[in-house]
């Protein structure tokens, strides 16, 4: 019996030694097939921000044929996009990818997705980008624990260098151009903001500040009116405030209509198409006629029924509503396309934490 065990043990040791000299045998990563033409015209980019700190941001492409291509940035360029892709913007032939925790802006050709440049100097916690006259304007939180270092960076689109910064209040978020002025929402960064900065593009300076309600999230400008969806502070902040929807006349910013949401309601997003404003509340989709401008009693439809767990991207574009679900933040997300009646038209899997849709010459 003892002898048997010695034999067994010797054998075991031999196996162990053999194993030692092998290297690990990894499984092949699935190869993302890319569009045959190699170009990304006529389709929708879905930005997947990736897990914070995990450097796995990526871009998916939904071709108008219905094909979905994942991780197009890394497939085309052979490198990762970076850590936490926040947003994207188009200007001319280029797409500008704002990568928040990497503190970079990756410039690519919007049709081939081929890498052109990385902007990294004077970019700290970048959020959103807007364009005017061959310049990009990028909101930056700076050090999020410093309430005084926030700014809008001015990017020279020819040199891909930041040529100026415009200091603004804490937590600049979305940025929108209208009639030579930039409107910047101050969602508040690590804190909670309640203002809109108005920046004069010509002088690159803040003209004035419009005070709205807490946590301005969605912003839309149409026909001389600025619409701002303020989510209000959520209950977990310990100082819950009401959500409000603002309709502000840009010719006279004192001329304002405000709709108050009920207590404990915290809507997000604001989209506009054909005279209708769209927003979401508790993962459900609501709409408002911009003339009547009255809060609806009921939602239009509920994507929750289709399995949406965390509505993390919301876009209305050419008669369709685009929604992305971030799931539990640690699995591949999903995209949903609805018609305006709320009928599900399409549904497809994307990558980690999809946060926005961008339409390329559809």
């Amino acid at each position, binding site marked *: 019996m003892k002898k048997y065990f010695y034999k067994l043990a010797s054998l075991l040791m031999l196996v162990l030694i053999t194993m030692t000299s092998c290297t690990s045998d990894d499984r092949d990563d699935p190869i993302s097939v890319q569009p045959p033409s190699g170009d990304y015209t006529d389709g929708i980019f879905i930005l997947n921000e990736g897990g914070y700190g995990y450097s796995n941001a990526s871009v998916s492409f939904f071709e108008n044929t219905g094909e979905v291509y994942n991780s197009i940035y890394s497939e085309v360029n052979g490198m990762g996009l970076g850590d936490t892709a926040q947003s994207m913007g188009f200007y001319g032939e280029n797409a500008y990818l704002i990568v928040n925790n990497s503190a970079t802006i990756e410039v690519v050709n919007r049709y081939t997705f081929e890498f052109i440049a990385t902007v990294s100097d004077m970019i700290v916690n970048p959020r959103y980008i807007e364009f005017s006259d061959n310049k990009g304007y990028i909101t930056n939180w700076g050090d999020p624990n410093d309430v005084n270092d926030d700014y809008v960076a001015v990017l020279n689109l020819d040199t891909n260098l930041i040529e100026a910064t415009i200091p603004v209040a804490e937590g600049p978020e979305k940025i929108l151009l209208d009639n030579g002025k930039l409107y910047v929402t101050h969602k508040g960064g690590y804190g909670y903001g309640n203002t809109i900065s108005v920046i004069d593009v010509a002088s690159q300076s803040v003209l004035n500040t419009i005070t709205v309600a807490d946590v301005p999230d969605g912003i839309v400008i149409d026909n001389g009116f600025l619409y701002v969806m303020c989510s209000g502070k959520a209950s977990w902040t310990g100082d819950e405030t009401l959500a409000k929807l603002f309709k502000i006349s840009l010719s006279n910013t004192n001329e304002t209509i405000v709709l108050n949401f009920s207590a404990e309601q915290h809507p997000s997003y604001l989209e506009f198409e054909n005279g209708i404003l769209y927003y979401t509340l508790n993962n459900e989709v609501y709409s408002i006629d911009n003339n009547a401008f009255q809060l609806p009693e009921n939602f239009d439809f509920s994507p929750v029924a289709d399995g949406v767990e965390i509505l993390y991207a919301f876009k209305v574009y050419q008669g369709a509503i685009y929604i992305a679900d971030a799931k539990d933040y640690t699995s591949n997300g999903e995209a949903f396309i609805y018609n305006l009646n709320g009928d599900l038209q399409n549904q497809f899997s994307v990558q*980690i934490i999809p946060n926005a849709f961008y339409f390329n010459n559809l």
Partner: protein
Amino acid sequence: MRYFVCTILFCIGFSSMLHSQTDSITALREVRLIAYRLKDSTYTRNVTIVKDSVLKQNQASLTNFLNFNSTVYFKENGLGMVSSPSFRGTTASQTSVLWNGININSQTTGQTDFNTINTRGYNKIEIKPGGSSVADGSGAIGGSINLVNELGFNKGFHNELFANYGEFNTYGIDYQTNYSSEKFSVLLGIARNASDNDYPYPETDRININGQYHNTNISLAATSKLNLNNTLKVFANVYDGRRNFSVPTPNALKTKYTDFNTRSLVEWESHFSKFKSNLKIATTTEEYRYFGNIDNDFYTYGKVTSFISKYGLDFALSNKILLTAGINYTHNDGKGSNIASETRNLSAALISFKHVLSETFLYELGLRQETNEQYGNPLLYSAGFSTKLTDFYQLKVNTSKNFRIPTYNDLYWQGVGNPDLKPEESYQGEISNNFNFKNLSISLTGYYNYVENLLRWVPDSSGIFRPENTNKVQIYGLESVVTAQKSFGNHKFTGSATFAYTVSENKETGKQLIYVPFYKFTTSFGYNYKRISAYYQYLNNDEVFTTTDHATEHILDSYMVANLGAEYTLGKNRDYKIGAQILNFWNESYESVLNRPMPGRNFNFYLHLKF
């Protein structure tokens, strides 16, 4: 009496024999037993004990040491950065780390960052797989790691200096001075480790930016035999560490993190007739500061002061029966940037019974009653037996109920903390088969662990992360530890290996938890010829899922890493050693956390002097 001693020797002997490279295998030495020397719950489960000499051949961080020498899996955010364990497929906060028997897991996170423990401060480490909440309290679900300062007597004045230097300006200095007389022994140790840690990422043109760290550990242990029946021990430890967190991408905002932990313990042991009493009184402080921007003085922090007292009374009913009763009390006082000042009192009573039924059979029972209404006053238990079936085969069976209470962050984080959380509960059973021969020992353990009310931070419907009692987790697996040694004349060979197969699945989805590999395998070989020694360490981790849907494109590949070392002993009394190591010998390009590359092949030298 003689039989009894033999039995106990036998029971303990196997439990403790593992690991070594050039040093011979460590068994619990000097087991001069009298009945009340029976200790807590170590008889019906296996424990691995690693001694100083082996520790010295490993890198200073507890992460590195356990990674290469145990079945514990580690997730390390780049070398030296935040490191969390998964012991037997459990979560990071389900491994309890003990310092001379006192739990030192962070009260704020529930975890120990294994890169903030410097193994140089200790001369013995015990690795105990499996739940041991009855003895060790909250958090001992996957297993426990006990860091021990052990003192000898009658050895006079001794000094030891260990110094290493390696690539990336990595250095370590460890000085220990020890004095012992017949009745008194004191040890003072000072260790410092630091590194620029700017290693290149293999197969890329990037280097590890902002990864530098340094830490200092001071440990003091003293023991005095007051008289024949009373012994007083004093332990103290201070750890002061600073790390910059390496940036995930080159242009990211640089951050840093500091830890300052102190621990002190007074232990009074006394025995009289059939009783032995042990009183431990300890205070610990833990404080971290996180600087979100290295260039800014602003930081967030958490600070907890704890007072722990443990009293145990052993009563030997006969030579073969030991009854133990004990009381534990813990008081925590914590505050932080996101936690208003909160105090917490925990107390528990425990009782255990051990019986050596025959020369070959021992059984034990333990009960622990927690008296904390907030957590439902759980009653924990542990029961098991150990039997020697043949002269080389021993069987151990153990079952237990264990728990982990919510952490300070879980309960009190402003706005999202949830004071109504229930503790995690774990029901487990294990069977160990130990085979022991002259030159070889093999242990093979199968276990099952069912965890309820798993505490996790999960997003609610508005996307805000909040702590919740979430899933049920079912864990089962096999682990094996093999050690062997053989000499041919002056040629001495030693070998050891650990193997773990772990299934840890969410009961609802049936899917393996993220960052839990199915397989982990380590092995080490040592060779010694006169004054020359060489050793080889090898680690193989299976692939892990990084997403809960197991999407294949996000799987983190398996990896193997090996270290090769050699040392030469000098001096008339063989008191001096010089050594060299090649770490990551095969220059494997690997990550243990997604997109956090580890270093490629690098070199390290050391010097070990005793005087």
